[in-house]
């Protein structure tokens, strides 16, 4: 029963996304594109956060690695978007292997603080290596060239066309992450979260599994960053700042920490809420903060958690 309902909801959501892409106004398409990119960022992040139980304050660095990787590739090598996205993902993946190697030695607050330190080092590097990164101006002039596939070329300069590319990649990400969650690997991760010692007794190398989760989440962050750079035609240093690492945490907690769809629902709420608040008041931080308080104090399981309890 539940399975059917979930499949129905997923189908409905997909239909809505396609309809938005076909008939939505330019602003709705833009905003939904941002929702999807944040969803990829948050879903990938949740492999580490919700699934493995590790809180990172440094994933903005991988997001930025994706954005700058794509930007530098498309400005200096080739403007092929898919190659650029791949370059961004590879950058993020390599960086997350490097940083993850050090960070997974710890857990809990020490892990969080280590990721914060490494993330801010990356931020500092981006800010200061002006000749490569453009400093605080960022990388300007990243263009969405057509996707050349042999004989045909798909133009993605139109927001609508690009929207569907993001949607496609979002679906691929969702499927991949779903598979990861339900693979033996994913089950070990959940085991690490629930009872680290027991998993260790079973002869599993905790560090390697943690590193695996770290790199997976970092890689998806890179994908999100690369897509964002194409969407905005720009890569900016603040995307590596620790405050940006807070976004997927916020989104996941709003949507529901240990649910699969929580990060997506949270992303929708996060962006729509912010946009709506700004239409009514200039004190958006005050209201956003108050709503957050209500969510934490009153809806602890997140929106998806509440809904599923309701259904039972």
């Amino acid at each position: 029963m539940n399975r059917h309902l979930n499949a129905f909801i997923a189908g409905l959501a997909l239909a809505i996304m396609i309809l938005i892409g076909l008939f939505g106004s330019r602003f709705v398409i833009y905003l939904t594109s941002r929702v999807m990119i944040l969803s990829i960022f948050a879903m990938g992040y949740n492999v580490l956060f919700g699934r493995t139980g590790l809180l990172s304050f440094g994933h903005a660095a991988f997001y930025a690695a994706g954005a700058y990787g794509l930007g530098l590739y498309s400005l200096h090598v080739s403007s092929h978007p898919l190659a650029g996205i791949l370059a961004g993902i590879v950058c993020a993946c390599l960086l997350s292997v490097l940083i993850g190697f050090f960070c997974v030695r710890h857990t809990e607050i020490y892990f969080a603080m280590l990721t914060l330190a490494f993330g801010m080092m990356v931020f500092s590097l981006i800010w200061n290596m002006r000749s490569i990164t453009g400093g605080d101006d960022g990388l300007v002039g990243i263009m969405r060239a057509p996707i050349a596939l042999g004989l045909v070329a798909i133009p993605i300069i139109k927001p609508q066309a690009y929207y569907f590319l993001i949607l496609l990649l979002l679906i691929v990400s969702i499927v991949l992450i779903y598979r990861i969650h339900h693979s033996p690997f994913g089950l070990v991760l959940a085991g690490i979260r629930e009872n680290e010692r027991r998993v260790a007794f079973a002869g599993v190398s905790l560090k390697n599994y943690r590193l695996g989760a770290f790199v997976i989440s970092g890689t998806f962050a890179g994908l999100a960053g690369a897509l964002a750079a194409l969407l905005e035609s720009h890569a900016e240093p603040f995307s590596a700042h620790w405050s940006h690492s807070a976004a997927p945490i916020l989104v996941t907690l709003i949507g529901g920490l240990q649910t699969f769809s929580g990060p997506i629902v949270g992303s929708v709420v996060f962006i729509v809420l912010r946009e709506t608040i700004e239409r009514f008041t200039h004190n958006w931080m005050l209201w956003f903060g108050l709503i957050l308080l209500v969510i934490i104090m009153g809806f602890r399981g997140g929106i998806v958690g509440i809904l599923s309890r309701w259904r039972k």
Partner: protein
Amino acid sequence: MAKKGWTRRRFIQAGLLTTGAAALGGFAKPTGLWAATPKIKGPIKVGYQAVMSGTLAGYGDFHRMGATMAMEEINAAGGIAGNKLVIEFRDSTLKTPEAIQNARYFVDSWEADFLAGVDSSGQALALGPVMAELDRVLMVTHAATEKLTEEQVFKNGIKQIFRICSPTYQDGNAAAFVAKDLPAKTWATVSPKYEYGYTCWEMFKNTLGKLKKDVSFTGESWAPFGTTDFRPHINTILDAKPEGLYSTEWAGELITFVKQAKQARLFERITHVMFPVGAAMDVLEGLGAEMPDNIWISGRYFFLYPDSSQNNDWVQRFRKRWNHYPAYVSETGYATMFAFKKAVEAAGSKDTAAVIQAMEGMQLDSPAGRRVFRKEDHQAMYDVPWGLTAASDKYPFKIMGKQVMVPAKDCFNRPPFEGDESKPPF
């Protein structure tokens, strides 16, 4: 009203199909029929974004005061070609995605005819391609990077962007013209550790080097954004022992720097000091009597210049309306609305292409004096003085005593922005 009904109906159509779109329902934008704007049909809507939260929130307030006052005056006098002027403000923060989202909201959802504002250079540069796509005029009122007009407008041909405030030329080149007549032969800087700071210092060095052969540049210390403790930087400068100090610190950080430099008696050791944005109202009022005398300051506008009836009347009205002296972003925000008014009325249309054509080469008599929007790069040419700080009985803060004018035509880079001929001295 009719417009609204249309939106609603379309929204219902869409809503039948998509519940997801319902959350964003109000955003649905009429296309087709309404996309073709008839001969000026009001109101004229301007979307204005500036930083309104965080440590620079005060600048947002000053932007808003100027723009709002212009709106009130324009509407009281019959509006723009008979149409009411409406402004909506949004917080740009300092992050690029926010600025882009604001611009897209203004144009695609709120249906703005023009955009204005923007403080950060990174945001202004990132908005370039967005403005080309949205095809609306953006009048930049604060961001100073010369790359915006030289590269985005002139080289990349993004004609939708104009700038009404003076750019880094005023901070770098003009400062060098003033410095060449000072006895100081060694110069050092404490400046912001980001593009703005680097660019201005580079321009200052190049131009001064050309104007005066025997100068040298002996020290630099770069303060990260948000620096509250300048003492380590002050030590670096004191060790370098320059005769002149040049600093593009601005806003709160300049106030902090001056206070801490004073404690270290830096101004007693280095007598020739130049603050390109020292004439900003927040700095002058924030420091009050603590601002040392005989410091060279300038800005994008200084409320006592020019001594014309238009400017003096405006300052009086501004004082009456807000109980403040106008900051430079108040003036640029104010003048922006009148630039839009003049261009729309001249073009007889609020159509972007027509307005761009009207605005290129347009003259505008504003509180800061006569501005001319240079055709090639859309940069407003106007003169702002450099002056030496001095106390006055009339004001509770320091003002410019002795003034030196470096005209914009002599110190602004010129098209084609390549090679030495494009840079002063000409």
